[in-house]
């Protein structure tokens, strides 16, 4: 049996999505800027896709900017806010558990002379709202805090963060790549000014993302060229990608969220029965498809490859699995010791994950953990 439990990394493209991608790649393949009927058809489809994604956020279509990825959306939001508003101030606030797309962009801006505050999080990954409020200074121009964490599933209180930022007159960006369509966002209620989204986490294609930008918020241009996407990022529009993204949004069913939650809890309960296991991230206010645990005395890369042999695809925040050989900054930020981060395992579900697969994972994982512990000098059966 094979089971793919790495849906936070990427998901399978839904067959319905694949159909429209094919249609807009082989039949209706025009350039959306062309005047002829091929171009007009493409433009029409692109604008419909834009409207569909806008609707999901209760936003206006002109607030939706298509990008080539969630990472690009983060870069556009953060860099181009910073550069555009640098005369007002040079201070940015973010958290210690952001995705590298945000973290590394902030590091780059530090090199460019901006000042960045990295907010602490508690043991479950939540930012401290009081600390945020205190950190906002006269020269603060941007706050960037993710909606839901990609490693440990923590859902940040972006409604409250938005309130604080609005009150202080600071632009608020949130990376909602992991949470989009899993947790509703209504931009009329949530005071986020910039929101990053990505298609391939919700059974859409890779290579297409979105930045929601509130109408009155001004940012600069990331990619110069023919003036596409309101002049903020040029390049011939990825119509097939945008249409595929919109289709993926169409396919979202609330019942899938409830199903994922149920299976997530079954997985967590089953894995926590393994002795000396730590649950990373909160029990509640957790992404419906995220499981993250750490098994003491074993190492995650070895665990992931051994599980792969058994047909279970998962991921880890172990230092040994990263190019830098540093443990996950998220697990360290929530207080894990490097040795504990070593044995971390992330399992992430999709709407296609079924109970049989979860049962299979629950059969295989304890066995593999036991095997690896048996060769670990630190493990002594208690």
């Amino acid at each position, binding site marked *: 049996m094979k089971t793919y439990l790495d849906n936070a990394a990427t998901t399978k493209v839904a067959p319905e999505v694949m159909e429209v991608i094919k249609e807009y790649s082989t039949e209706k393949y025009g350039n959306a800027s062309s005047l002829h009927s091929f171009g007009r058809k493409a433009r029409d489809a692109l604008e419909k896709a834009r409207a569909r994604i806008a609707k999901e956020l209760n936003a206006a279509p002109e607030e939706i900017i298509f990008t080539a990825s969630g990472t690009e959306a983060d870069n556009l939001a953060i860099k181009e806010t910073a550069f555009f508003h640098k005369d007002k101030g040079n201070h940015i606030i973010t958290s210690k558990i952001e995705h590298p797309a945000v973290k590394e962009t902030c590091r780059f801006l530090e090199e460019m002379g901006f000042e960045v505050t990295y907010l602490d999080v508690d043991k479950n990954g939540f930012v401290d709202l009081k600390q945020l409020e205190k950190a906002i200074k006269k020269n603060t121009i941007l706050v960037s805090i993710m909606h839901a964490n990609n490693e440990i599933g923590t859902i940040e209180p972006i409604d409250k963060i938005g309130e604080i930022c609005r009150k202080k007159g600071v632009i608020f960006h949130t990376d909602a790549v992991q949470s989009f369509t899993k947790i509703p966002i209504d931009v009329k209620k949530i005071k986020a000014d910039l929101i990053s989204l990505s298609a391939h986490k919700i059974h859409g294609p890779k290579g297409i993302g979105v930045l929601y930008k509130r109408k009155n918020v001004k940012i600069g241009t990331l990619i110069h060229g023919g003036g596409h996407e309101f002049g903020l990022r040029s390049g011939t529009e990825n119509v097939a990608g945008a249409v595929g993204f919109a289709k993926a949004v169409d396919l979202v069913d609330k019942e899938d969220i409830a199903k994922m939650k149920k299976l997530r809890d079954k997985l967590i309960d089953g894995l926590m029965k393994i002795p000396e296991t730590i649950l990373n991230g909160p029990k509640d206010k957790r992404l419906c498809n995220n499981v993250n645990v750490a098994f003491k005395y074993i190492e995650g890369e070895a665990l992931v490859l051994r599980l792969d*042999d058994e047909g279970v695809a998962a991921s880890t925040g172990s*230092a040994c699995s990263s190019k830098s*050989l540093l443990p996950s900054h998220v697990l360290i930020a929530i207080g894990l010791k490097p040795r504990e981060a*070593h044995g971390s395992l992330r399992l992430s579900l999709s709407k296609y994950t079924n109970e049989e697969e979860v049962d299979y994972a629950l059969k295989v994982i304890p066995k593999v953990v036991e095997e690896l512990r048996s*060769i670990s*000098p*630190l493990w002594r059966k208690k």
Partner: protein
Amino acid sequence: MQYSKKVLEAFKHPKNIGEIKNPDGLGKIGNPVCGDLMWIYIKVGKNKEGQEIIKDIKFKTFGCVAAIASSSMLTELAKGKTLKEAKKLSNKDIADALDKLPAPKMHCSNLAADGLKRAIEDYEKKKSLKTKQDKK
């Protein structure tokens, strides 16, 4: 991380896993940066020429794919060798026998060779203590 076929094979089917009860030598080594740990157990015997050899060797490792594979490879390379030869085993020998390790992982195989050196040193220390005691 891209591993060679030999690394994956050694990881999937590691040889000489476990402990030796009352070992002649035990070498414990760790990498403080990543947290990896290796314990190398040896039993010393003699060959026909009367030279001391690694008669048996086992390991326990807390670490990644490369750490487990290199521990296993070390035990295979060391088994039957004279202590003099075994001491000469290096990080490079293990990596070569595994068809190379990814560059950032070279420290893992370093550990295995150093772990064995420590086990042999442990044996030699115990032996010299014993000889001294015997002389008394």
